[in-house]
């Protein structure tokens, strides 16, 4: 059901390496008349590390945010795919009374027995509100490869986001923005995620395949919904191109940035200049700036 007010969980990266995602997201939601109420003193969701070390911790951390949102009696929206995944997992696990009690124990406080936590991703939020979008500058001529990453869609029974192999949520939004969404096969393949820190070689290999495929599919840029994917595809791109000696050059946007552009928000505000692969030339010669 459509709502106009949401509890907002930015997550660590959006405060640091992915500022542009956070800011563009807030701006776009504002433009659509959607109120985002940031959770008070939120903690890390535990992504990537916590749950791979300690199952319980992996649920307890996001459970905190779920509780906070429940107190506000608002559905919780997450921007980062990893956070989204963790929150969804927690919500899924907390359906079990056993788990609820256990978590209550470790958190040292009574946790609400009402276990219908509503968690949505920013993509779903925008997709629901495309009708509210007043397109000032349609992104005509821009060929976008929508990249969802692996965590939004999997496992289906937990995230229940969209088709696992060929999701459409972002594509729909991109179309509304006036851009062209190219069909390609790697929408939900892994980019290497947090391996960037320990096994960059893996990331280079996987991300290269993604970029190469996107380019082969005729895309002239990528749209993503996850800060980790973004940093892999954007910041590693030069390294990748060098290693594989091919002329890959694909600006990587957050879908919120593209939305912002189309809604006529000033590019500066959207921090389009914060990317490693400078998207401005592309936007210029497409006459979008």
């Amino acid at each position, binding site marked *: 059901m459509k709502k106009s007010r949401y509890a907002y969980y930015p997550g660590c990266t959006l405060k640091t390496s992915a500022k542009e995602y956070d800011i563009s997201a807030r701006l776009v939601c504002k433009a659509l008349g959607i109120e985002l109420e940031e959770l008070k003193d939120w903690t890390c969701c535990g992504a990537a590390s916590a749950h791979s070390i300690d199952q319980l911790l992996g649920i307890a951390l996001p459970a905190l945010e779920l509780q906070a949102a429940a107190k506000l009696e608002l559905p919780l929206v997450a921007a980062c795919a990893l956070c989204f995944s963790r929150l969804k997992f927690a919500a899924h696990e907390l359906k079990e009374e056993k788990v609820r009690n256990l978590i209550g124990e470790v958190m040292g406080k009574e946790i609400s027995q009402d276990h219908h936590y509503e968690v949505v991703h920013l993509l779903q939020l925008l997709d629901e509100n495309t009708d509210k979008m007043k397109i000032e500058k349609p992104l005509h001529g821009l060929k976008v490869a929508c990249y969802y990453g692996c965590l939004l869609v999997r496992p*289906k029974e937990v995230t229940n986001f969209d*088709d696992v*192999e*060929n999701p459409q949520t972002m594509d729909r939004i991109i179309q509304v923005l006036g851009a062209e969404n190219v069909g390609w*096969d*790697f929408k939900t*393949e892994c980019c290497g995620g947090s391996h960037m820190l320990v096994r960059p070689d893996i990331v280079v290999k996987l991300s290269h395949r993604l970029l190469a*495929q996107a380019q082969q599919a005729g895309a002239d840029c990528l749209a993503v919904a996850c800060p980790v994917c973004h940093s892999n595809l954007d910041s590693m791109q030069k390294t990748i191109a060098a290693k594989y000696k091919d002329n890959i050059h694909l600006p990587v946007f957050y879908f919120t940035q593209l939305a912002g552009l189309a809604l006529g928000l000033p590019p500066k505000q959207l921090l389009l200049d914060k990317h490693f692969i400078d998207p401005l030339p592309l936007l210029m010669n497409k006459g979008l700036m």
Partner: protein
Amino acid sequence: MARIGVFVCHCGTNIAGTVDVTKVVEVIKKLPMVVLATDSKYTCSEPGQASIREAIIENNLNRVVIASCSPRMHEATFRRTVASTGLNPYLLEIANIREQCSWVHSDDKEVATAKAIEIIKMAVSKVIRHEPLFPTQVEITKRALIIGGGITGIQAALDIANAGYEVVVVEREPSIGGRMSQLDKTFPTLDCSACILTPKMVDLGQHPKIKLMTYAEVKKVKGFVGNFEAEILQKARKVDHLKCTGCGTCWQKCPQKILSQFDLGLGKRTAIYIPFAQAVPPKPVIDVSICRYIKYLNWVATGQEGKKPPECRICEKLCPTGAITWDQEEELITEKFGAVVVATGYQTYDHSHYQEYGGGAYPDVISGLQLERLMSASGPTGGEVIRPSDGAHPKTVAFVCCVGSRDQQKGRPYCSKVCCMYTAKHAIMLREHDPEIQCYIFYIDVRTGGKDFEEFYLRAIDEAGVIYIKGRPSKIYRDGKKLKILGEDALIGRPVEIAADLVVLATGMEPSIGADELARILNASYDTYNFMVEAHPKLRPVETQTDGVFVAGACVGPRDIPECVAHGGAAAAKVSALFSQDTLTTDPLIAVVNQARCIGCLLCVAICPFKAISYEVTRDKRLIAVVNESLCKGCGLCMASCRPKAVDLRGFTNQQILDEVNSLWL
């Protein structure tokens, strides 16, 4: 006045060890109408039974209670014993004082004895109300209906017909032959499928006792074992098969073409067509959905809107025997049968559900069955294996096993059984087609349970140099002209990438479309995947819960050819055994209606799971329920729902059950 004899069995120490049998006998002796109560070591033994027979005659007993093991154990035995003295076998009641008393109360002899006494009291109070019952006889129509003309149906039909009984085979396609006719060769012998199948098809087509109805469907079946009545819809062929000689001029000249279902979209067929060269009957039908003249007729009928289709009629002009009959319409034919064999077989899983493998999206990602058509000498490419996309000859071919099998995600958790072997077969045959072809097979497990299967699999590795990779691929995508398969070799734990020219998905089996609908028509049950459910998975594999309805072949579950043939034969044997009797004996433990009490609310008609209750109008214009004795299975649902207690169940009457309850407080 009932004269009851009670026989308490020691069952060695099984009962006597826990229950004080002598005490029991003492108590039971004193019950009204009990003229004899005695015990014996082993009642079921010959001497035990003999003593019962003597006792019945000496004391001229007219009711017998045997307190021993569970009735599920020896009721039948003791019924025979009783019957052998001339007493009606249904005047017997078993008191279960072993399984439900001595064995479960071994810890307390007193309690067990007291309980045994009560159990026997219950039996006594019930047996008093037993009445002599007599099985009834019904005539049998010695004529079998076979639904499905695949190898299973063909086998069943031939066997029944050769046993001397009439058979009607109903096939929904224009020709019999089923899936097997689409195959090129069969594992593990690699003998040509057509060569072993077509002779059987011809035999069936020419058998004097078999009536073949192709292009027809079973729409309705009513009645019961021995006396079914089926409505069969004969679709309009627009061709008079009595006149047609099958010369083939029409389908050679017909200008209207469409992708052929038989070739799975790899080849074309005409509007007037036979599905394949060796079709039986070898006579065409007109596909009214595309025929130009039919289109023209519809155009005229619908007030000539839009562009005028050509008035083709070429087939009609060319037909030497004037067999084309445009006015031929579909007709509903009603036939009587004594038994039905369901052999509707399977279809392969639609691989377009596997987007991650580009199923349906990439022309060069094909199903196993499509490869069969490509390899078949009578197939669309005349046996030349080429890539559907560009006609190039593939040099690297990758197979993926368990597509639509063993996959929870796709709702197909079961193993389709044949894919491992047919994939090995494909690999071997591809090598024979072109020695330069390198095959890779991605598998979860290679299952070779069958005669010569393992050897065949090894042959694929040793002779055809197939490379088996353990693990289900994660993705298949187009990379230039090639298809990239991403997977993991689970044995070495490394990711693997293979660039192939052609990818073959070993699609699994699922029941043919409409299997569930047919099951409902036959009042037979089907599982969540719409496979038919056998009466018992081990002991009654070709029967269903509905008497007279048999199932065979792949409509019950994934099966290979020899199994299907065996099941077809098994079903045929059951049918023949049924037909070898002149009448059917029905169990007398069924519902009876007291017409004087019946108020005709017809609640029972609605409830009966076997449609065994109908109604009729009496002379005084009252509606009353009537039980069909051959359909009634004696479940008792009707009497439990009958307010005026107008219907009752022989052997478990209201009075009897009530008396059993009462006896506990007497």
